[in-house]
C-alpha cells in the first residue's frame, strides 16, 4: 500500500478513474456492438418486412376502393358520376401499380418473389376485367358488368386478397423471428454489462477505500485541526509525515502554516500590545495636544492683541522715524557748521602754538638773565663783605687813634651798618631771585607743558576735526539711513497690517486646529478601543509556549 500512498494524487486518480474508464469503455463497446446489431436487424425489419406488410395493406385497401367504385359505377346511372368514379378508379390503380413497383424493388426471398409474381398476374387479370366492366357500363350493359363483377372479378379479388394476406403474414412472422433474435442478443449484452458492472463496482469500492485511506483521512485530520484553528486554538499541529505526495506536501505546508500562524499571532499579539499601549499614549498625547491647541488658540488671541499693539507701535515708530530723519537732516547741517568751527579751532590752535613757542623762548631768556643777576648779586655780596671788613679795620684804626678817632668810629660803624644793610639787601635779592628762578623754572616747565598741551590741543583739534568730519559723514549716512528707516518703518506698518490679517487667519486655523485635535482625540480614543478589541481578539488565540 506504501507505493499507492506515495503515488501522486493525479496518479491515484488516473489509476482509479482510468481503470473505471477502461471498464466503462469495454461496456460501451459491448453495448454498442449489441445495439448496432439490434438496430441493424430492426432496420432490416423496418425496411423490408414492415414495408411489405404496409404496402400490402395499402394494396388491399386500394383494391377494396377500386371494387367499391366499380360497384358504384354500376349502380350509378348518371354519366357524370360514372366518369368521376372511373377517374377515382384510375387513380387508385395507379397507386396499386406504384405499390407493386415498390415491392419489386425490395430484396425479397424467392417465395415472396413468386407470390409477388402471382399477385401481379392476378392484378393484371383484375384490371383487364375491370376495364371490360367499365366499357360495359358505358355501353349501358350494367347487368353484364354486374355479372362479371360478382363472378370473375370476385375470384380475382379474393385471390389478390389471400395472396397479399399471406405475404403480409409471412412478413410479420419474419419480424417476430428477428425480434426474438434481438431479444437474445440484448440479453447477452445485458449479461456482459452486468458482469462488467460488478467488476467495476468491486474495483471502485477498493479504489474508494484506498482513496479514503490515503486522502480523506489526512484531510479529515487536517480539517479537524483547521476547525480547532478556526476556534482560535493553535496549540495542536499535524504530525510531520514523510509522504512524498501532495498530501505530504499539504501536511507539511499545513504544519508550516500553523507554525507561521502561531508565530505571526505571537508577533501580532506583541504588535497589538504595542498598538494598545501606543494608542493609549497617542490618546494621552492627543488629549494633551487638544489642550495645547486650546492653549495655542488663546495664545494666538493674545498674540493678535500683541500684534495690534505692535502695529500701533510700528505706526508710532514710523512717525518717530520721520522726525528722526528730520533731526538727522538738521544734524547734518549742524555737523557741517561744527566742521567749519573745528577747522577754525585748528587754525587758532596752530597760532596759539606759535605764541607759546615765542613765550617759551622769552622765558628761557628770562631764566638766563636771572642767572646773570645771580652772578652780579654774588659779586655785590662779596663787595658788602669787603666793605664790612673795611669798616671793622676802620674801627680798629679809629680805636688806635684814641680820643681823636672817636668820630671816625661812628663813621666806621655807619659804614659797617651800610655794608650789613647791603648784604641783607643782596640776601633779600638773592631770595627774591631764587624765587624768580624757581618761578621761571616753573614757567619754563609750564610753557613746555603748555607747548605740549598746545601740541596735544592741535592734535586733539585735528583729531576733533577728523572726528567731526567722520561725524558729518556719519550724520549724512545716518540721515540716509533714517530716510531708509522711514521707508522701512512704513513697510513695517504695511507688513504689520498684513501680519494682523495673517494672525486672523492663524486664529481661524487655530480654531480649526483645535476642533481637528478634538476629532483626532476621538479618533485616538477609537483607536485605543480598537487596540483593546484587537487585544481581546488576539487573547482568544491559544499559542503553544505562550
Amino acid at each position, binding site marked *: 500500500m506504501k507505493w499507492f500512498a506515495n503515488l501522486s494524487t493525479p496518479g491515484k486518480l488516473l489509476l482509479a478513474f482510468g481503470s473505471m474508464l477502461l471498464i466503462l469503455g469495454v461496456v460501451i463497446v459491448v453495448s454498442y456492438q449489441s445495439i448496432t446489431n439490434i438496430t441493424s436487424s430492426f432496420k432490416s425489419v423496418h425496411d423490408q418486412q414492415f414495408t411489405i406488410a404496409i404496402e400490402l395493406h395499402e394494396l388491399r385497401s386500394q383494391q377494396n376502393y377500386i371494387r367499391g367504385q366499380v360497384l358504384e359505377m354500376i349502380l350509378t346511372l348518371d354519366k357524370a358520376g360514372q366518369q368521376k368514379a372511373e377517374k377515382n378508379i384510375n387513380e387508385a390503380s395507379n397507386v396499386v401499380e406504384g405499390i407493386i413497383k415498390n415491392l419489386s424493388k425490395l430484396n425479397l426471398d424467392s417465395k415472396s418473389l413468386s407470390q409477388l409474381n402471382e399477385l401481379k398476374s392476378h392484378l393484371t387479370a383484375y384490371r383487364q376485367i375491370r376495364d371490360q366492366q367499365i366499357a360495359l357500363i358505358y355501353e349501358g350493359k350494367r347487368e353484364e358488368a354486374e355479372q362479371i363483377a360478382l363472378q370473375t372479378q370476385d375470384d380475382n379479388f379474393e385471390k389478390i386478397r389471400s395472396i397479399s394476406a399471406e405475404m403480409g403474414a409471412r412478413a410479420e412472422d419474419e419480424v417476430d423471428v428477428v425480434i426474438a433474435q434481438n431479444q437474445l442478443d440484448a440479453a447477452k449484452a445485458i449479461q456482459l454489462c452486468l458482469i462488467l458492472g460488478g467488476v467495476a463496482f468491486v474495483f471502485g469500492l477498493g479504489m474508494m477505500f484506498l482513496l479514503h485511506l490515503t486522502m480523506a483521512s489526512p484531510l479529515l485530520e487536517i480539517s479537524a485541526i483547521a476547525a480547532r484553528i478556526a476556534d482560535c486554538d493553535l496549540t495542536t499541529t499535524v504530525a510531520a509525515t514523510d509522504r512524498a505526495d501532495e498530501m505530504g506536501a499539504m501536511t507539511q505546508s499545513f504544519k508550516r502554516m500553523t507554525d507561521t500562524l502561531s508565530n505571526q499571532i505571537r508577533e501580532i499579539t506583541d504588535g497589538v500590545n504595542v498598538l494598545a499601549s501606543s494608542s493609549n499614549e497617542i490618546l494621552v498625547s492627543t488629549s494633551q495636544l487638544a489642550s495645547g491647541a486650546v492653549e495655542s488658540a488663546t495664545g494666538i488671541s493674545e498674540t493678535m492683541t500683541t500684534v495690534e499693539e505692535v502695529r500701533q507701535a510700528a505706526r508710532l515708530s514710523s512717525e518717530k522715524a520721520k522726525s528722526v530723519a528730520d533731526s538727522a537732516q538738521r544734524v547734518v547741517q549742524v555737523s557741517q557748521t561744527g566742521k567749519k568751527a573745528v577747522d577754525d579751532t585748528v587754525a587758532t590752535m596752530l597760532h596759539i602754538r606759535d605764541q607759546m613757542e615765542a613765550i617759551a623762548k622769552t622765558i628761557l631768556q628770562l631764566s638766563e638773565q636771572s642767572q646773570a643777576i645771580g652772578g652780579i648779586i654774588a659779586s655785590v655780596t662779596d663787595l658788602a663783605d669787603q666793605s*664790612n*671788613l673795611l669798616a*671793622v*679795620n676802620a*674801627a*680798629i684804626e679809629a*680805636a688806635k687813634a684814641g680820643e681823636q678817632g672817636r668820630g671816625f668810629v661812628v663813621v*666806621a*660803624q655807619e659804614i659797617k651798618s651800610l655794608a650789613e644793610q647791603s648784604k641783607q639787601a643782596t640776601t633779600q635779592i638773592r631770595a627774591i631771585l631764587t624765587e624768580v628762578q624757581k618761578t621761571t623754572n616753573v614757567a619754563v616747565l609750564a610753557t613746555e607743558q603748555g607747548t605740549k598741551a598746545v601740541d596735544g590741543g592741535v592734535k586733539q583739534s585735528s583729531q576733533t576735526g577728523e572726528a567731526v568730519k567722520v561725524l558729518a559723514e556719519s550724520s549724512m549716512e545716518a540721515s540716509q539711513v533714517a530716510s531708509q528707516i522711514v521707508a522701512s518703518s512704513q513697510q513695517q506698518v504695511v507688513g504689520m497690517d498684513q501680519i494682523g490679517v495673517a494672525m486672523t487667519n492663524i486664529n481661524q486655523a487655530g480654531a480649526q486646529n483645535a476642533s481637528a485635535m478634538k476629532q483626532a482625540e476621538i479618533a485616538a480614543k477609537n483607536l485605543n478601543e480598537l487596540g483593546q478589541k484587537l487585544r481581546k481578539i488576539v487573547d482568544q488565540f491559544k499559542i503553544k509556549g505562550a
Partner: protein
Amino acid sequence: MTGKKKPQIAIRKESELEILHARAQALAKEPEKAVPASELLEIIVFSLGGENYGIESVFVREVYPLRDFTPLPGVPSFVLGIINVRGQILSIVNLKIFFGLPEKGLGQLNKMIILHDECMEFGILADEIIGTKVILQKAIQTSVPTITGIGATYLKGVTSEHLIILDGKRILADKTIIIHQEAE
C-alpha cells in the same frame, strides 16, 4: 544822609601794633650812664666753629679776607699755611686745632684776623667777622671752673652773652706757637 559817620580805626594791622609796642618799650628804658674809658674794653667779635669769640682790638692789626693762602708742609696741624698780605708774609693758625677743640661742622673759614704786638705778628682763622663791640671790664667772668687745660690759659673769661673773650697778650706771647725746627 543823616551825617552820621563811623569812627576811624587807627590800628589796622598786627604788624603796626607790634611796631608801636616795640617803640613803647624802647622809650620806657632807663638811659645808660656814662662809663669812664678805663673801665671799657673794645673787642673784635668773630665766630669760629659755631661759637662767638671776642678779642681786644688792641692786639688786632686788621681783618683780612682769606684768599690764596699757601699750605706749608712739615708743620704742626694747627698751622694752616702762609699768606701774602700786601707784600708781607704771615702764617695762619687755626685756633680750634690749637686749643684742641673738636672739629664740629663745616665753617666758612674764609676770614682771618691779623694779631700783633711789639714782637709777634700772625693771623688766626675766623668763620665770620661780626664786628666791634665795647664791653665793661667787670662784665667778664674770669673764673670759669669748667674751662681747663690748654684752653684755660688763653682765655680771659666769658661774658653774660656767652661771648668767649680770648687773652690776646698770652696768645701772642705763647712759645708753643713758635715753630723752631731745624733740618737735621
